[in-house]
C-alpha cells in the first residue's frame, strides 16, 4: 500500500519529494548515495503514488475551490439593501417576525422589485393570505407573479402542498424569485418541516439565478439559510411610544373617525449572514412604510 510506503519513508527520515505526474525526476545526490549503500534505487514519490485509489476523488484542502460570491439583487427597499447588501441569488433567505412586524410589506417590496426587473416570480402562499390590492399598490407586476394558494384545508395539509409545490417549482426552474409564505402557519406546524427538506431546497436552488425566500414567524431552516432577517416586535411596554412612532397618533385627542393609519415603522435586524467569510455583526435598521391611501 502506498500509505505503508509513505510511513516507511517518514520513519527513515527521508524527505518527501512531490512531483507532478509525468515530470522528469532529477537525480538527487542523496539518492546516488543511497544506491551506493546497496539499497534499491529510491524513486521520488509522485502524487499518484501518494494517492490511494480510494482517495482519488478527494481534493486536498489546499486546493479547495473558493465558492464564488453570490450575486446580490435589490430587495426593493434601500435601507434593507444597505443592511444586507441585497438578497443573494441561489441561496435561501429567511425573513421572520411576528404579526404586524412588516414581513408582508417586505415580501411585496421584494416581489415588486423582482417583477419590475422582468423576472417571473412565484408566491407559494401557505395560508392564502395575499391581498391582491396591496400587491398592486406595492408595485408588483401581477402578470409576472404566479400565485399558488395552499391552505384550503388544515395547516398540515397546506404545509404538505407548499412543500410539494416548491419541489416542483424548483425542479422546473427559470424563476427569478420563489417566495414561501409561512407567516400564518403556527410555529409548531412550521417546525415539522424536516431539516433535510431545507437542505434539499438549498441544494436545488444552488447555482441557479433564483432567490429562495421564506417568510415565517420564527426561523426554522437552521443553517440552511444564507441570510436571516428578523423583523421587530411591537412591545406593550413601550406601546405608547412605538405606536406614536408608527404614525398612529394615539396621543391625539381626536375621535377615531378623524384618525388615519398612515404607515408602519419596521425594524429589521440582520441576525445571520453566511455570505461573508467573517461572522456578521448583528445590525439593526428602521425604515418606514406608508399605507396606499396616505399618498
Amino acid at each position: 500500500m502506498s500509505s505503508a510506503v509513505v510511513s516507511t519513508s517518514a520513519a527513515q527520515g527521508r524527505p518527501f519529494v512531490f512531483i507532478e505526474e509525468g515530470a522528469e525526476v532529477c537525480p538527487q545526490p542523496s539518492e546516488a548515495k543511497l544506491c551506493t549503500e546497496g539499497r534499491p534505487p529510491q524513486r521520488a514519490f509522485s502524487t499518484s503514488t501518494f494517492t490511494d485509489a480510494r482517495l482519488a476523488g478527494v481534493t486536498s484542502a489546499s486546493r479547495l475551490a473558493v465558492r464564488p460570491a453570490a450575486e446580490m439583487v435589490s430587495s426593493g427597499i434601500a435601507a434593507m439593501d444597505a443592511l444586507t447588501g441585497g438578497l443573494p441569488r441561489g441561496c435561501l433567505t429567511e425573513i421572520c417576525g411576528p404579526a404586524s412586524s412588516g414581513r408582508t410589506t417586505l415580501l411585496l417590496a421584494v416581489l415588486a422589485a423582482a417583477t419590475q426587473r422582468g423576472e417571473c416570480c412565484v408566491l407559494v402562499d401557505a395560508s392564502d393570505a395575499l391581498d391582491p390590492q396591496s400587491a398592486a399598490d406595492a408595485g408588483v407586476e401581477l402578470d409576472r407573479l404566479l400565485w399558488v394558494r395552499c391552505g384550503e384545508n388544515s395547516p398540515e395539509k397546506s404545509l404538505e402542498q407548499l412543500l410539494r409545490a416548491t419541489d416542483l417549482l424548483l425542479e422546473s426552474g427559470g424563476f427569478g424569485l420563489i417566495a414561501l409564505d409561512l407567516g400564518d402557519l403556527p410555529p409548531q406546524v412550521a417546525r415539522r418541516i424536516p431539516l433535510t427538506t431545507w437542505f434539499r431546497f438549498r441544494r436545488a436552488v444552488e447555482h441557479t439565478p433564483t432567490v429562495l425566500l421564506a417568510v415565517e414567524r420564527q426561523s426554522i431552516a437552521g443553517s440552511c439559510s444564507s441570510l436571516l432577517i428578523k423583523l421587530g416586535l411591537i412591545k406593550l411596554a413601550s406601546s405608547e411610544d412605538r405606536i406614536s412612532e408608527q404614525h398612529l397618533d394615539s396621543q391625539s385627542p381626536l375621535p377615531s373617525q378623524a384618525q388615519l393609519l398612515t404607515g408602519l415603522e419596521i425594524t429589521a435586524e440582520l441576525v445571520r449572514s453566511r455570505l461573508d467569510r467573517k461572522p456578521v455583526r448583528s445590525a439593526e435598521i428602521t425604515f418606514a412604510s406608508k399605507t396606499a391611501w396616505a399618498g
Partner: protein
Amino acid sequence: MFACIFVPNFPVAAVFRAEPELRARAVAIFEGKPPLEKVFAVNESAGRIGITPGMTKAQAELCSELTLRPRSLLQESVAHAALLNCSQSFSPCVEDAAADTAILDLAGMESLFGSLPEIAHNLFRCAATLGLDGNVAVASNPDAAVLAARGFSGVTVIPSGQEADSLGSLPVEVLFAGWIEKEGEGKKKEDEQQKESVRLLATLERWGIRDLRALAALPEVALSERLGQEGLRLQQLARGAASRTLVPVEALAVFEEAIELEYPIMLLEPLAFLLNRLLEQICTRLAARALATQELRLTLELENLAGADPQLDTFGIPSESDAAHSATQSQLPAQHFISGRQSKFCRTLRLPLPMLDPKLFLKLLQLDLNAHPPGAPILKIRLAAEPARPRSAQGGLFLPPSPEPEKLELTLARIAGLVGEPRVGSLELLDTHRADGFRMRRFMPEPAQKTKRQEVAGEGKSAVAALRRFRPPLRVTVTLENGELAHVLCSKKKEAQGSVLWKAGPWRSSGDWWEREAWARDEWDIALQNADSVALYRLVHDLLGGSWFVEGTYD
C-alpha cells in the same frame, strides 16, 4: 414532374397504423351486418394461410392463427388524412385521387428537396413514419405516376420519355384498379363503372392483351372502332402519354387521429398507451407540415353512462366540484353529450404557446384526466389538434431568466392537481370596490423585453404597508363602551383578540345594491393588545348581516 404515393391494401394498412403490433400476424378485415359479415381485406400472411376476401367471418374464424378486425371507416379516414398530410409536406399542389392514392405536382420542388429520386425516397420515408407503407412513383404525367405506383412496389422513378417502356410490363388490370374508390361518387355510378371495367377487361382478355405493352401496340383506329373513346383513353394511359391537370385539395384545418376499440377501456393506464400512440402520430403529421399546436381536443365516446357500474369503473363519476374546478380558461369544462346508449366526453387542452412535444401533451392529458375522469368505459377515442405556426423566439443573453414554456405548463398542471385548478395562476384585479375583488387567470408571463433600465421599487419611494388577509374573514365579537370599540373576542384565532388600543374609522363603503350580492360595510383600522404584543388589524362591520369580522392584519 409528378409523384404518386399509393398505399396498397388500404383497409389493412389503416388497421396496422392503429395497431402496429398486428403487422407480424395474419389479419383479416371483415365488414357487413351480423351474421352476414364477410372478409373484406386480408394481409399477405393471411393470404398465405388460405384466407381470401369474400369468405364469411364464421369460415375465417376457424383459423386460429388469424386475427379478425372489423373494418373501421374512421381509421381509414384518419389514415387518408395522414396520407394527404404527408403529400402536402412536399408539395402545395396535391390531388386526392383516391382514399389510398395521392398525386403531387413536383414542379419547382427539386431546388427545395433535392433530385427526384431523393424526393421519392423522402416521401416514402415520410409515409413510413406516419405508419403507412406505400409505393412511390415519379413520372412526367400524373396518370403514369399512378400506374407505376400501383404496379411497382417501393420507389420508382420513370425518366421522361421512357413511360411506355417502363409501364409496359404491368398487367392491364392495373388500369382498372382503384378508380371505383374515388370519393364523392354515388353508389350507382360506382356500380356502373365497375361493370364497364369488368366488360373492358374481359374483352382485352379475349384478345390476348395481358400487359400494357401489348395494349399500347394496338392500332389506334381499330381500337377506337371496337372500344370507342374509352379504348383510346386506356391506350394513352398504357403508353404513359395521357395528360391532365391536377385538382389540388386544400390543406387540412384540423389534424385528427382516432381509434375504435374492440373492448371498452376502464383504466387510465391503457388509455395513456393509446393516447401516446395518437399523440405521436398527430405530432409527426404536424412536424411534417412544419406546424405545432396550441389546442388539443380529446373526445371519448363512452359506453352507456347510466348503466356503468361505479364499483367496476375506476374513473369515477365527476363530481360537481370537479365541474366547477374545470371552469378555467386553460381547460374548458368537461362536456357530456348523451345520444342513445353512448355518450361523449370532451376535454379541451389550451396551451399558452404553440408546442409540439407528444410526451408533454400526454402528461398534460393524463393530469387532466386524473382530475376529470370520464366516468364510464371508453369505446372510441378521437384526438384533434388545432394547427398553429410554431413559435419563433430567440432568448436574449442579457434578458432576465424565465421558465421554459413546456416545463412551466407541466409544472402548472402538476400544481393544479395538487392544490386545485382555480388556486394556481396569476391574479387580475376586478374593477370594483368590493373587498378582495380579484380573479385568478392563467399564468402566461410575457417574454421580458430588453428596455431601458426600469426604476426599481424602493429607489425613489418608500415601501407600501401591506394587508395580510384571513380567508375566510374571522368572525369576532366586539364589545363597545360608550359607543366606542373596546374589546375584540375571536374564538378561531386567539391572536386576533384583545383590548383595542387605538382605532381609526369607520370608513363606510357599499356597492352592488342593484344585485343580489349587495354589500355595505364599515371598516376600522385597530391596534389590538394581546398578551405582550400589539398588532394592527382591519375590523369590518357587515351592515347588511350585522356581523363583525377581522378581515386581515397589517403586516
